[in-house]
């Protein structure tokens, strides 16, 4: 009995998933709107990447159940990925932003 109660506690309801799906669609809608309006490239990139990171977080936390797993698992998987992405960025952004400021790329 107590086992069932625990399972109910950790198993999220379908209503929650519907909400997550709705929010993912809404954020996609905002991205499409940004594509329609068109802003300067740096602003556009910042806004789009922020939205994408939020969407990725929602997918990982709810659809991939990471929110309902042990913190130990999350701490094994996520920081490693984030650190390597930061390393990518350290090499990517200074050079890329310089090229943008020189009016080279777009």
């Amino acid at each position, binding site marked *: 009995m107590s086992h069932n109660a625990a399972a109910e506690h950790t198993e999220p309801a379908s209503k929650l*998933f519907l909400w997550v799906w709705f929010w993912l669609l809404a954020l996609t809608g905002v991205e499409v709107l940004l594509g329609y309006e068109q802003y300067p490239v740096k602003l556009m990139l910042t806004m789009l990447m922020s939205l994408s990171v939020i969407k990725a977080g929602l997918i990982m936390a709810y659809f*991939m159940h990471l929110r309902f797993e042990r913190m130990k*698992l999350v701490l094994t*998987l996520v920081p490693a*990925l984030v650190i390597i992405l930061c390393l*990518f960025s350290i090499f990517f952004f200074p050079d*890329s932003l310089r090229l943008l400021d020189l009016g080279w*790329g777009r």
Partner: protein
Amino acid sequence: MSNAEAGAEQLVAGEWGGGSLPYAVGSKKFGMWLFIISDALTFSALLIAYGYLRVASKNWPEPFEFFPSLVTATVMTLCLLSSSLTMVMAVAARKAGRRAAAVKWLVATIVCGSAFLVLHANEWLKLIGEGMQPFSNPWGAPLFGASFFTLTGLHMFHVFSGVCYLGVVAVATGRGKFTAEDVEVSGLYWHFVDLVWMFIFPLVYVMSIHHG
């Protein structure tokens, strides 16, 4: 409970004791998570490469019109997001022991995934028809084709593999062979494919809308 089982449980209970399930997930699920992290790095590297080629090229092409290209890409996003929702439902149904319902949700996921593939393949054919090739295109920087085809092609291959994978899982679930964990592990893979598209869609499509 035997002595060995009691001992194993104690090991699990100890925070740093190791034990059979230190993360409280099975080895299949943990293995899939490790694969997903490494695959995420592959896609990150490709996206970074795409970004760098773009910013370092004089006349990077912007071949996508808001209509129909971005609208099609949005419908493709809708397909993938909905397939993730049906996948979640499949995992929940299988966990609750409702195998027939799980198979139905899995089939719905496969249908959404296939719709994505058809739309994407159609778009590729349209671009190829307009003269786009890996090392040349009529609009500008020649490497646009190579980076676009590699990035979206690898993603399309992931979707295709996922559809096959889910097909196997659906058949096996229908026959009562796979456990709830197997369905959940296939779900993890599928959500990851969806997650990657959440970065390809803005970076490749929304950022490349042609504006007069």
